[in-house]
């Protein structure tokens, strides 16, 4: 089989899994849906490996393959094929997406085992993975938009999975609305591309763009910015980020799947994929880099103060995606995708450990209530520390190599790009601090009550309640199940976490400066025409960067050790000394309030004005005007309808006589 056949199979398995579970769930015994879902994604991963080996067998310059299933639409210069693009970048993305997703599916089998929506959950999960794979494999913008929108819908369905919780449904709607704003940007970008280049096909666009546009021409910058709107909304970048923390309302595996490992990376993929546009639209690329930097700093500061375990990880996701967006913005493509991969490993792992801890805490997520789980949850604690080490870029872990690759490239570009390197290092310091804020608070210190009971073998299952509002809930459909699960009791969770733990520790070694260069060499096939891709900082500069990174990471961990383990009172004192700053950060820089004030309220006010004024005077005026016209015309005609049979007959005769006369005169 050739690589594109594998490409179609990558899409077929998750779709089939989703459909089988969705339509056949009544016939599936017990937990079969979970295993079918996991197997579907696992098979998808295997065929991705097949595609990978096929691609590797080809010469480097022939690694971009397209294949069309049929003509989707073809009329008047428009030619949309149902085609996929199998090239190193899409295969790489498929590997990350399907590989991580397989582990998350495996984990979910145990995690949602007592949930009444078990089958629905796996159907959604498979559909989500299918959408994401469609997005990365799409060979034209139209198909890409289809995948893009499917991902948005799937995230809505999964965030609102526990649909009897108002907090969850509201979070789902928020995610969906913000995603749609991004969709609009992407659709407009596609329209402008079609207007300028006359094609939707990705490879054709990339071929023609450098010939058609001059550097920083207005329209290409506009296209770039519209693409960025889509990317920012999907990747939760400022100011479209507010949905991501709220999306933590979904079940924890969902957070791991869509809000850490796959969905939010779609924006990074989009910018990387459209590199020919961004290398012409330099302003747009700079905007991407600046927004990435701003996001990574803002998110890191918020992660330092919020107390919800999952939300800390959510903000760290935002921050890490900020690094990636900055990376693709400044042209460090391979480094950004490298970070995307390592981040997928350690972030999925962190969410899984969070899920296990939340299971032990009976759905409570506040880290102030947690502590000292090292003896009661030894396995979870070990993997949590591994995840934190990778997140904090501890020397030797995967995050260490990937994050510094981006920052080293920023230094290499020099000039104003130093800002990105310095900002990135400041962010890295905060990353190390908040990573070990989670680590030390949960694992170390005196055991909390739950941890002490768990050491005695007593696992709490409290009355189900919404962790956000404290409302009591029943455990019927649409709420989490009554049983909480921890990794220590469930081997599928253990396997999934172990695999990701190994990835989080060792996946960085595929690309060590001066030693290995696997990913960079592999992705070359997709970035052949790039001006920036083949520029690389020297090994010495990269090692210097790595040394700086190591120093910063260790400093951050030491600070965290001081504040969150050895001297916990110091953290409280600091908070008491800077109450304004703490409130500002704890309220997430007031972004929600600002958006509410600037967009939501004016829109609502406009809507009310339409209802009270526009509707009453303009719309109703039009309606009653039309009514008046009809009434007037009607009363004019009514007088003819006298009801006198003889007058009708007379009209008939006169009419026919008139017609006859007309034809007589006209005929003679």
């Amino acid at each position, binding site marked *: 089989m050739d690589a594109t056949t594998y490409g179609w199979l990558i899409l077929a398995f998750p779709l089939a899994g989703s459909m089988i579970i969705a339509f056949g769930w009544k016939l599936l015994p017990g937990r079969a849906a979970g295993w079918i879902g996991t197997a579907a994604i696992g098979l998808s991963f295997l065929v991705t490996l097949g595609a990978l080996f096929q691609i590797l067998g080809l010469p480097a310059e022939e690694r971009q393959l397209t294949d069309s299933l049929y003509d989707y639409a073809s009329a008047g210069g428009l030619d949309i094929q149902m085609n996929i693009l199998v090239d190193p970048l899409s295969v790489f993305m498929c590997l990350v997406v399907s590989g991580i997703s397989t582990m998350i599916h495996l984990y979910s089998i145990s995690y949602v085992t007592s949930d009444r929506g078990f089958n629905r959950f796996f159907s959604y999960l498979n559909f989500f993975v299918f959408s994401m794979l469609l997005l990365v494999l799409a060979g034209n913008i139209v198909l890409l938009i289809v995948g893009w929108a499917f991902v948005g819908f799937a995230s809505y369905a999964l965030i609102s999975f526990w649909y009897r919780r108002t907090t969850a449904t509201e979070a789902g709607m928020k995610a969906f609305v913000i995603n749609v704003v991004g969709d609009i940007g992407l659709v407009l970008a596609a329209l402008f591309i079609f207007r300028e280049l006359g094609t939707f096909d990705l490879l054709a666009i990339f071929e023609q763009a450098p010939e058609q546009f001059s550097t920083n021409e207005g329209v290409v910058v506009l296209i770039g910015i519209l693409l960025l709107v889509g990317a920012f909304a999907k990747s939760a970048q400022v100011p479209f980020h507010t949905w991501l923390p709220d999306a933590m309302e979904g079940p924890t595996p969902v957070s791991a799947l869509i809000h850490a490992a796959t969905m939010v990376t779609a924006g990074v993929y989009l910018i990387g994929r459209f590199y020919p546009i961004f290398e012409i639209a330099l302003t747009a690329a700079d905007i991407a880099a600046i927004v990435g930097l701003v996001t990574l700093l803002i998110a890191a500061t918020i992660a330092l103060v919020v107390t919800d375990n999952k939300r800390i990880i959510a903000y760290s996701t935002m921050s890490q995606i900020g690094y990636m967006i900055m990376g693709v913005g400044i042209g460090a493509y391979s480094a950004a995708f490298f970070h995307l991969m390592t981040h997928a490993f350690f972030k999925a792992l962190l969410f899984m450990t969070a899920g296990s801890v939340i299971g032990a805490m009976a759905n409570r997520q506040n880290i102030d209530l947690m502590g000292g789980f090292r003896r009661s949850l030894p396995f979870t604690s070990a993997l949590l520390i591994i995840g934190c080490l990778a997140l904090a870029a501890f020397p030797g872990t995967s995050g260490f190599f990937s994050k510094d690759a981006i920052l080293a490239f920023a230094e290499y570009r020099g000039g104003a790009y130093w800002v990105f390197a310095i900002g990135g290092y400041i962010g890295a310091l905060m990353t190390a601090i908040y990573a070990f804020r989670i680590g030390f608070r949960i694992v170390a210190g005196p055991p909390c009550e739950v941890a002490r009971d768990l050491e005695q073998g007593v696992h709490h299952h409290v009355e189900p309640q919404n962790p956000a509002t404290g409302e009591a809930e029943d455990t019927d459909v649409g709420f989490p199940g009554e049983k909480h699960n921890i990794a220590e009791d469930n081997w599928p969770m253990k396997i999934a976490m172990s695999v990701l733990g190994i990835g989080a520790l060792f996946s960085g070694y595929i690309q060590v400066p001066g030693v290995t260069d696997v990913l960079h060499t592999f992705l070359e096939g997709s970035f052949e025409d790039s001006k920036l891709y083949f520029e690389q900082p020297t090994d010495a500069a990269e090692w210097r960067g790595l040394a700086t990174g190591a120093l910063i990471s260790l400093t951050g961990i030491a600070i965290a050790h001081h504040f969150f383990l050895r001297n916990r009172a110091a953290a409280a004192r600091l908070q008491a000394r800077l109450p304004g700053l703490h409130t500002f950060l704890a309220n997430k820089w007031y972004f929600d309030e600002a958006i509410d004030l600037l967009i939501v309220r004016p829109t609502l006010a406009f809507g009310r004005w339409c209802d009270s004024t526009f509707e009453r005077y303009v719309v109703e005026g039009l309606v009653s005007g039309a009514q008046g016209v009809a009434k007037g015309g009607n009363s004019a005609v009514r007088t*003819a309808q006298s*009801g006198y*049979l003889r007058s009708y007959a007379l009209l008939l005769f006169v009419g026919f006589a008139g017609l006859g006369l007309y034809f007589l005169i006209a005929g003679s």
Partner: protein
Amino acid sequence: MDMSWYLVLSALLFATGAVGVLIRRSPLVILLCLELMLNAGNLALITFSRTLGDEEGQVFALIVMVIAACEVVIGLGIIVAAYRRRIPLNVDELRALRG
């Protein structure tokens, strides 16, 4: 033979029928006048058919007679029904269709 005489007779019959329809108030008489008009038309059809040597006119005349018979059946049926229900047999008073 000159066909104009027949046509003049046909036109006169038609005019008589038309005037009858317009000025009389009794539905029975109006129905009779309608028959007169139809037969005026038949006369013209047969005249043309004879002079031009085309049988289609004869056929049409036969069809018109059939239609006229049907119409008389329905019309007389309505008149008899109206009479039995003591509805006045005067078309000027039967104006329920006034707009």
